[in-house]
């Protein structure tokens, strides 16, 4: 590689403080652990994190060690938003009653996987959003139940192989379309919803910061490439995340008080095939299925552009 002259050394723009310490047990190239690291950098110290059962909890908290340099609690798989509700309410009541006087405003954040969010935890999340607690919820979407061995979730994309949506004589793998969780969050009319991806770390950190600053519920849905489950090379996580965005498979956008804004406007989408061919989970798909996916991605991208008022 040629030596390049850099005007700006980008990592210097970001705090060196790590509140999600290294030494955790994530697989090599784990996009989810990387996303968590970025999120934690954006959150800083004055935060309480509630984590659902799943990869992140398992890789970070094996007794007697912990990766968490900020207060962190894990209880169960499906109740993150309810636990956050309790913590936020406890602070509210105790501050009001003069029982505690925190020097700085404490932020309350929930972390869960796509399973913990769009499947088993959706009720608790919907409840917490509807009640209007002041919290940020981050869904780390690696598009399957990875912690338990790559089983499908409602967030698994159409056509993907998983261990419970296996490819067979009568199956192409996942036979249902990915649940649009960010839209479900938008339907709650909460003040902030965004999508993000660790392949775009600055965008991700900005969104997390906006999410915690806004008063009321905020939801950030983070596509988190998982080499183990997506059957791809661990050195490709970042590239695959970029391709997900560039092909329109996972568009980056924000919805602030109901107003859509595209984070990156792509005049032309790359073919979804470029994204899919790098992942073993799509290897079995025939051209016609890929075309079907291509058409759906394009249509959904147009819909989104329309919402954002982009021609």
């Amino acid at each position, binding site marked *: 590689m040629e030596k390049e002259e850099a005007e700006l050394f980008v990592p210097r723009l970001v705090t060196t403080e790590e509140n999600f310490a290294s030494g955790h047990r994530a697989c090599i190239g784990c996009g989810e652990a990387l996303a968590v690291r970025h999120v934690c950098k954006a959150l800083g110290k004055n*935060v309480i994190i509630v984590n659902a059962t799943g990869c992140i*909890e398992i890789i970070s908290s094996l007794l007697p060690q912990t990766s968490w340099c900020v207060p962190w609690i*894990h209880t*169960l798989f499906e109740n993150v938003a309810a636990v956050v509700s*309790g913590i936020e309410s406890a602070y509210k009541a105790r501050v009001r*009653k003069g*029982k505690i006087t925190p020097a700085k405003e404490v932020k309350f954040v929930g972390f869960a996987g796509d399973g913990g969010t769009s499947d088993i935890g959706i009720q608790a999340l919907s409840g917490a959003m509807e009640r209007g607690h002041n919290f940020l919820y981050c869904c780390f979407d690696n598009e399957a139940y990875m912690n338990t061995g790559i089983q499908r979730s409602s967030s698994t994309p159409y056509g993907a192989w998983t261990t419970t949506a296996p490819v067979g004589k009568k199956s192409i793998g996942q036979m249902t379309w990915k649940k649009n969780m960010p839209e479900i969050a938008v339907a709650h009319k909460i003040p902030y919803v965004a999508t993000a991806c660790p392949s775009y770390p600055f965008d991700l950190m900005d969104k997390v910061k906006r999410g915690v600053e806004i008063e009321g519920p905020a939801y950030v849905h983070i596509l988190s490439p998982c080499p183990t489950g997506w059957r791809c090379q661990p050195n490709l996580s970042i590239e695959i995340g970029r391709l997900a965005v560039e092909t329109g498979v996972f568009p980056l956008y924000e919805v602030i008080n109901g107003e859509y804004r595209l984070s990156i406007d792509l005049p032309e989408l790359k073919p979804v095939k470029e994204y899919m061919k790098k992942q073993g989970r799509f290897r079995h798909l025939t051209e016609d299925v890929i075309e079907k996916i291509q058409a759906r991605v394009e249509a959904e991208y147009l819909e989104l552009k329309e919402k954002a008022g982009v021609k």
Partner: protein
Amino acid sequence: MKKVKIEGLEGSFAVAEAVRMANADVIAAYPITPQTHIVERLSEMVADGELDAEFICVESEHSAMSACVGASAAGARVFTCTAGQGLELMHEVLYIPSSMRLPVVAVIANRALSAPLSVWCDHSDVMAIRDIGWIQMFAENNQQAFDLTLCAYRVAEDKEVLFPAMVHLDGFYLSHVIEDMVLPDEEEVAGFIPEYEHPFVLDPDRPVSMGCYGPPFIYPETKKAQEVAFANTRPKIVETWKEFGDTFGRYYSPVEKYKMEDARIAMLTMGSCGETAMLAVDEMREEGEDVGLIRLRLWRPFPFKEFREAVKDVELLVVLDRAISFGMGGPVCSEVKSALYDQRKKPYIVGFIGGLGGRDIPIEGFKYMVSRALEKVKAIERGEEIEAEMIGIRE
């Protein structure tokens, strides 16, 4: 000047009053018959500013208990209440505060389980959550529901305890019945339940990780520690009840005895039917039967010592279960038998199942159980096998 009031209150309102006097910070609950009046009354108190608390009107009991866990981990004094199906839906979450040593307080208006749907009282809901590691007490009347709720806070938050505590009151029998009761002086209550500070809370100034992942090399040690600490709550519970008695004049103990001094036969009950059973004892005594009554006030941790002491001179113990362990009989009866199995001297134990789904057990029901039990003892002596009998069933 102490300001003691006597007031006619429904059991549910008595509980709400106790929570108000305890000055809870966070309440998270979901309505279910027969617990609804408790949440409604607490909502009113919060709406009227009589209680300065956050009321989280959650979307399920699973979330109710989860929110309580979160709030308690953040240092708040919390409260929830439920019944029957709601308690079952909470089941998974119930193990969390006991394993994480969070002093959550819950009141259960005991209710039968579906199917068929029944909103009425029995103890099926309790029996399904025996092993959750909470302190569990049974109230027999509204005064006790009030008193035990206060005691639950006091003992749960004791730095040497730090376990969640649950008070059971029978649905409808107590939750919806108005009884005269003594409401103590509020300042005295505040003195009895002082402000508490949990030693480890979620606080950015002192970060801790809670609820970590425990592989086989460490999980059993955490459970051993929990069991030892839980067993050690027994003397603390007794001490708390003694202090409560010294302060408010009403004394409780893990195993409460009625006319047991010279009793040859003892009945054992939990919850509201203890009051009817006492009337039955009075009648049977008049009829010349040496009967007494044992009421289990403390269900968990099981009061082995006090229980064995209470039955040591008894020849026959008649146990009433308001629940069935299908294929096994009455769960309380099984536990009582196991508690006495390795005693050298032990009574005959005969179990009955009754009062399911809100079916009343009248005085005659208790008298029937005693006379039937005496017949069953003869059968046992003849070497016959006996099974738990369901009483009051139309054949």
